[in-house]
């Protein structure tokens, strides 16, 4: 028996919203008895895609994070539901029983990821069912995964060591969307953006991009170093949020510069002009 999960690689998500639209296409106006009442034609979103703009002109990156139901092994929604209205199948998929859950509006607050929505017309809470109805018919993958053009959304058997999702999780590079909930989410992420600190170094005396300059970043006792590229650009990615870092720039023949900055947001320090020493 398979145990289903997903890995979402943010590095590959282009923000096309195919996942959102294909989920709507599958469920809006379509009931799957025993699995899910029909989604209303408008208004629900079982896989919101959150766009995040990072940095300042002209150093800007954009990331997209799709957020389906995490099908947690320790799901708070299962605990809060009455009469066994939410349950986890042997294959790990968490289902809201459309009949038993009727009237239990409070369940929309049970999920820390806020993936449960309320169907006002049918008076029932609803959420992503990992297309269990399709998998049970022998289909390969949920609609969102099928429609993803880059393979950012991956689906498979967590108990099969050879599956793509298992292999990625085994690298240790995946994480839950919010590490602190501790609810054993079976949807894991790669490439979740941290914060970046970036800048561009210019030789002031020659108005030229400074290539190959050593830039050191430090925080307490930790340190990293990169060299600027041909455009004089440097970048430190995956940094902690709201943390003070010190940037030290040292180029032979030029006065050293030190900049302290706090990662309240992704930070482009702009053009940093070096003066001759």
């Amino acid at each position, binding site marked *: 028996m398979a145990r289903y999960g997903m890995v979402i690689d943010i*590095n*590959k*998500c*282009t*923000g*096309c*919203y*195919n996942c*959102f*639209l*294909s989920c*709507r*296409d*599958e469920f*809006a*106006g*379509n009931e799957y008895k025993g699995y899910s009442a029909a989604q209303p034609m*408008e208004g629900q*979103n079982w896989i919101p895609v959150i*766009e995040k*703009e990072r*940095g*300042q*002109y*002209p*150093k*800007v*990156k*954009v*990331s*997209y994070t799709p957020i389906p139901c995490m099908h947690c092994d320790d799901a708070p929604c299962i605990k809060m539901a009455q009469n066994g209205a939410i349950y986890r199948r042997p294959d790990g998929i968490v289902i809201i029983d459309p009949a038993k859950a009727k009237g239990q509006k409070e369940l929309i607050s049970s999920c820390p990821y806020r993936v449960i929505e309320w169907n006002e017309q049918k008076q029932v809470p609803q959420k992503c069912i990992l297309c269990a109805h399709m998998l049970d018919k022998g289909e*390969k993958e949920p*609609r969102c995964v*099928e*429609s993803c*053009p*880059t*393979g950012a959304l991956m689906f498979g058997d967590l108990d099969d060591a050879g599956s793509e999702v298992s292999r990625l999780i085994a690298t240790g590079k995946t994480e839950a969307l919010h590490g602190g909930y501790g609810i054993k989410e079976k949807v894991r992420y790669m490439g979740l953006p941290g914060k970046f600190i970036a800048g561009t170094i*210019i030789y002031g005396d020659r*108005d*030229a*991009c400074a*290539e190959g300059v050593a830039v050191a970043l430090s925080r307490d006792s930790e340190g990293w170093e990169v060299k600027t590229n*041909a*455009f*004089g*650009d440097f970048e430190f990615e995956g940094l902690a949020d709201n943390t003070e870092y010190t940037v030290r720039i040292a180029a032979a023949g030029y006065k050293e510069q030190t900049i302290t900055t706090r990662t309240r947001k992704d930070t482009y320090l702009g*053009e940093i002009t070096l003066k001759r020493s």
Partner: protein
Amino acid sequence: MAEQILTQCTVGGPVFVHVEDGKISKMRPIVFDDTDAPSWTIEARGRKFTPPRKTTLQSYVVAERMRIYSENRIKYPYRRKTFDPHGDRHPEMRGKDEYIRISWDEALDTVAEEMRRIRKSYGPAAITAMTSSHHNWGLLHYKFGPFGRFFNMLGYTTLMDNPDSWEGSHWGAIHTWGYFWLLGHCDNYDMLEDALNNTEQVIFWSVDPNSSSYQYWGQESAIWRIWLRELGIKAIFIDPYCNTTAGVLGDKWLAPRPGTDAALAEAIAYVWITEGTYDKWFVENRTIGFEEFRKHILGEDDGVPRTPGWAAEICDIPAHNITVLAREWAAKKTMLATGAMYGTGGAVRATYATEWARLMVLLIAMQGLGKPGVNVWGGAAMGAPLDFSFQMPGYGSAGWDTFALIARKKAENSVSQKVYRLLLPEAILNPPISWIGEGFCGQSIEQQFVPHTYPEPGPNGAEIRMIHRHGGSFISTMTETNRWVRMYQSPKLECVVMQDCHWQSETRFGDIVLPASTNFEHADICEWANAGGYGEGDCGANHRVMIYEKKCIEPLWESKSDWEIYKALAKRLGFLEEYTEGNSEEDWIKKIFNISSLPKYVSYEEFKKKGYFVVPCKSPEQKRTVSNRWYYEGRPCDTPNSLNPKKGTNKAHELATYSGKIEFVSQSLTKFDPNDEERPPMPRYIPSWEGHETKELTAKYPLQMITPHPRYSYHTHHDNKTLWLNDIPQHRVKKDGYAWWPIRIHPSDAEARSIRQDDIVRVYNDRGAVLCIAQVTERVRPGLVHSYESSASYDPLEPGKAGSIDRGGCMNLLAPSRMLSRNAPGMASNSCLVEVCKWEA
């Protein structure tokens, strides 16, 4: 009834359609099975690359069933309330009138009667008709199918299209490297394999492939650009907007002011020339006119050396960045993924875009166009190792009439008069007009120089009295589109017919409205994304897929297929037999099947049953013929494109320019108009007539606006119909019960105007005003506002009044109608100055 799974095709990819109880319940990509031809594998740099075995869909067709069942479908035939074909016509009411439901008989009788009357009173040239791209998909039920055959048979004034997504390339690059059969862009055969193996860097210059699907290929190449990144191939984006591809893939973003890209190009050439970092052998052997160019770049002709410092002032990019860009380009094997074919960054549709487009070709020539890893690679989005010996017509394969390929007798238009789309309002309101060129000048370089006048002098000319509009809308795709509002309200237009699937922004200017069904409501045949003709060999798919488009549902409400509508008109006009040649819809489909390569692989019944066929790709043994490689190596052209006139001749190693080489100084332009200062024989940066240097305008309208092609609609065909798209905030933002069209503005410009995120703003200039929702973002350079074109909702606060404020988001109301340049009659949409202020209702 049991669920059926049928096959169909859309402008954004082929689909499996699930039908239950006579209703489409969902639509999915076509996932191939084990009996379908194997997919290709490219081996490069120690890795193997193979595409997923399915079609990918562009986002807007994932929700296609919403478009089919949209409440905006035209459900019945209608007559405009105050329009009486036997009495007063009230043209002034077009755009603000009510509509009365009528029967098909009344509708078709009226249209046919009007056609007959107008032909008799004024001559056949008094009727014109035009289509749009692409509200349906399929060879036989679409614009170049029944429309072309009907109007050619009737005889009508041909409306010439301008090559509207790649103006600069058509009017410019053709004079630099030929390729007129592809309207100025080059083919892209086998470029993916070449890039994966050899390329070190890709420069995306004014192109956004993740948005545009590079025409109709779904999102097939999205994964390619991720492969490039995984291989460590750097991506540099040049675009005033940090576009959707740049945001996720860009290693470097350079944002020139709109309209200044040519200056940046000249400065790059300066660095190469002064540092000697260009391919001297290629320039010496494969180009002409370089010496004059070299002198010009160094400032020896006009005293202005095109240095990075010079360009920095114009583009507002630091000189040191320009220098590094040039050096990096020269130091690495670089693909120029420029938006020549599909101007999603705007540079190809701006004033003097001809100059930029030509400089693009010249720059890549200076680095050895066609050598391994170095080419013009459209959007990094075309050129998988597919087999093009397999024949299937595209919609443009036979010019204006697909039936010409299969009918016993091709329809020949008896009317010689032409009119030009961009000038149609002037043609109606204030004739005569004149223009140069034949619209899509795909047959020769000289076509661009042919002068035209409307009305045609002599007995065969006539002023247009009737417009038959087949699908789509110009209000948000042409320029200065308040002109269309005025045009339709002219009493000179005695009859306006709108034939479409949905109420579009132009539909309410029609006198008779005919409900057409979508391609899901009848059968057809096609190849995925195949334009043929000017698009021959453009292929951005991972697999070539032929589709038998099955009829999924009965025509909705009282709609009829375009074929049925034109048959009914042909019958009333007395040429039904000639039109159909006794063939049914299915007969025509079979004829297309029979002229294609399909019969070599599969029987008609098998093809029809399965509904799709995947063409086997090139085997590893089959020769790769990289575009332009033959030219670099001095060999006869060996790429599959059939329209290169020199191919197979003793000049097959030449390009289609007069000299046969890449021309720094264009011989065709030297011949035609050596004194044209707006498109001189040798290209250069020319300050825009509506740009940052146009001081008489910037005082009032200080912001430059670009309006590229949108991501979430194919032109206007999905917006305002597939309403689920309104839940995508990059498409529309819902506020106070309305789905607003976004405009993107830099924080400094927003603050100066007290504009905050999600404020409703008025965007305006002398041409009109549009209400949008402000998105304050670092993704636009200061001084720029960005909003997509193609809003399908024209929602004037004062309906029927030209110049009314529109809140639907039709940015094209603000775009200039002035042409690219004197002899280049293309749109310059992206040379537009506006001001933006908070909207106080």
